[in-house]
């Protein structure tokens, strides 16, 4: 079997010269995301807002209009209904009830009484006000700590400039992911936080691979201009970047289309994250290094431990 070289070995695309374009694009993306979050708002799920979520299956295709009529006049506030995967399945969302934890439980009973016999309850989730606040706090904590820990790790393994560059790319990925959730009105819940953290992990993974190559080239070509050197590092790792992104996307697409309705938003977030993470590693994390003073002093420092093999190669 003859292997296929998806990306030619001598590929030389001009990423670094076009960096201003990427910066502008990303800047617009981030501003738009923040704007989206503030104007349209995030569609928080019950995990963070408290409330009730019930998935029911009816014997025949559900009459959502009729159900809405049954549920909107029982004094539980704005009940939202949505077809969920199959025409027989309906997802019912009930806002958090005033009156503490007990009121939530009573609301569930009210809904069950209103819907009557004949429907199967596939899922019932009730999150009280107390727990929802804790979950939100823990979620924010997890994301911030993850970013901090990654910054420290990269700083420790590389130079500080790399740490800052990686975190800029990371924050970009996290913000735009949240932005697209606001734009599309997808539910933002615990799974989304998990997806965001995984995106952070994936994006940093990608960035580290390119940075590793940058570090190696810095040692090898001491006279080369930094922009040329960075462009070289990106092109030499491009084949790997593309192939890994493709295999990950293949798996995630299978999950998106076949994994069931419950984790569809989750898989969507990951797919978006892989694409944006790959983009940010190449087009943000690496070109940003130019502006962080990765100057001769830093290069000199790195070059202190010359690899004799590399020097021999360069000749």
């Amino acid at each position, binding site marked *: 079997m003859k292997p296929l070289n998806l990306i030619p070995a001598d590929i030389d695309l001009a990423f670094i010269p076009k960096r201003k374009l990427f910066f502008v694009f990303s800047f617009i993306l981030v501003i738009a995301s923040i704007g989206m979050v503030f104007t349209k708002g995030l569609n928080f799920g019950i995990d963070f807002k408290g409330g009730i979520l019930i998935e029911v299956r009816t014997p025949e295709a559900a009459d959502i209009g009729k159900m809405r009529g049954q549920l909107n006049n029982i004094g539980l506030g704005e009940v939202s209904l949505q077809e969920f995967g199959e025409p027989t399945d309906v997802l019912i969302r009930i806002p958090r009830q005033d009156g503490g934890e007990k009121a939530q439980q009573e609301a569930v009973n009210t809904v069950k009484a209103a819907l009557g016999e004949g429907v199967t309850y596939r899922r019932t989730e009730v999150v009280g006000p107390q727990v929802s606040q804790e979950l939100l706090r823990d979620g924010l904590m997890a994301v911030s700590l993850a970013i901090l820990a990654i910054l420290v790790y990269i700083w420790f393994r590389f130079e500080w400039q790399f740490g800052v560059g990686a975190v800029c790319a990371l924050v970009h990925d996290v913000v735009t992911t949240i932005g697209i959730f606001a734009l599309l009105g997808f539910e933002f819940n615990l799974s989304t936080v998990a997806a965001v953290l995984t995106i952070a992990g994936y994006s940093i993974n990608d960035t580290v691979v390119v940075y590793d190559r940058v570090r190696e080239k810095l040692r090898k070509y001491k006279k080369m201009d930094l922009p040329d050197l960075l462009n070289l590092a990106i092109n030499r790792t491009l084949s790997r970047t593309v192939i890994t992104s493709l295999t990950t996307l293949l798996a995630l697409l299978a999950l998106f289309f076949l*994994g069931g309705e419950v984790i569809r938003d989750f898989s969507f977030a990951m797919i978006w994250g892989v694409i944006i993470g790959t983009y940010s590693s190449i087009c943000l994390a690496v070109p940003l290094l130019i502006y962080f003073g990765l100057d001769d002093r830093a290069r000199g420092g790195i070059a202190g431990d010359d690899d004799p093999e590399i020097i021999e190669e360069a000749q």
Partner: protein
Amino acid sequence: MVNFPTWKKVLVALICFIGLAFAAPNFAPKDVTEQLPSWLPNQQVNLGLDLRGGSHLLLEVEVQAVIDEYLEALVGSARDELRSERIRYRSLSKTETSVGVTIPDAVDREKALELLRGVDAGAEISVEGDRIIIEMTEAQKIERRVSAVQQSIEIIRRRIDETGVREPTIQRQGDDRIIVQLPGIDDPERVKDLLGQTAKMSFHLVDIQNSVEEALAGRVPPGSMLLPMIEGASGPGNLNAILVKKRVAVSGENLVDAQPSFDGRDNQPVVSFRFDTLGAKKFGKITTDNVRRPFAIVLDGQVLSAPVIQEPILGGAGQISGNFSVQNTQDLSLLLRAGALPAPLTILEERTVGPGLGADSIAAGEIACLVGLIAVIIFMAIAYGRFGIYADLALMANIFLILGMLSMLQATLTLPGIAGIVLTIGMAVDANVLIFERIREEVRLGRNPIAAVDAGYSRALTTIIDSNLTTLIAAILLFSFGSGPIKGFSVTLAIGIVTSMFTAIMLTRLFVVTWLRAKRPDTLPL
């Protein structure tokens, strides 16, 4: 790197074999694995409630209720002590954590201080002006909280066991919370009902000297209390409230058995009960002294019924009538048998998944895994030829290792956990991609196959470790801060990272090196 000593080969094979052995029970029906001898791996992956169906409840013990009750008792004993010594006092009251009393006379205050020290030896007692404050110490509060939660867990377990739920998990979380997991329960209504009652039962004499009407108007005589009748029952004079003595005649703690049955005369559902020796003695005395007077049966602050004592009951057995259905008597006797909760429970969070959705999720997850796996396998074979097939073999071994690890550690596999496995399938080959790309570069630099493979593996290694460790950091944070299903996702992700590093680095190298040594090719098919 091209050197592969025999011991290393044996080790790699052994690890793969162990992984396979632990994964194997998952492919056999459960009744077969249960019959396997215990020295063989016989555990299947522990499925989370979102996959097997069931109900997850997060409960909070209202610890303040226990503390209030304790302080209430402290107020009672302080009052008794002060009265018995004829000390004049006013505003004897409790706050959230303390009891205070004002004693104007300085000599009396000194005396009272001594007396009150004896009431609660552990508490901190202090004087502020003419007021004596008995403050619960932090240690006392913690002790009460710990024992209330511990006791609640015990009572919850007994109540749930009585309902016949199989394999419930009941565990403490944090300071005052309890997680209850009920596999296979898709309507936890009955369990929630049972846990929603503290089931504190007591027998009181009815206050017949004072009128209920007076009490309803706000003039409740000291030593008595006005209690509502339970729905559907009515007290004397057809009112829905009744005046009973505060003093507990016999406590529900003295019950040893309770069973649903029917009344001999009118065939109404009743609960028959039996007291222990002490309870029987007390009950005998009370009923002997109060023939033809009513006594009240009180459950959680409501009066179930207030029958008139017809004759002394000396055997220690009796029955509770009320406006009961058969289900009521079954539940009540269950609650009485299991004992009272020390404090009320609040349901903070409930997540229930029906068996239908769970089964659908497993099926969807399996298909997604399989399709994702096949897609990646084909892609890798196309992209890297022979080397891609080696990576594919490693990928399949990786799946078995993940399954084996999950079964061995008895970690819980959730729906997001399955997503974690699918993601791992995609990312696991990354290490191989890195290595193979590196080998290609080395070949281009003019190295011979063996040197290129050698350099490829060693150069790619640091990158692989760096990139995987960062993902591992994210997984560990997810585990520490995530809850429920998210924890499940972080577990499979973390296990996947570790196993994929092993299979991608060690296993593929074993294949590649073995092939290199056997064929000694002039060029690499890469």
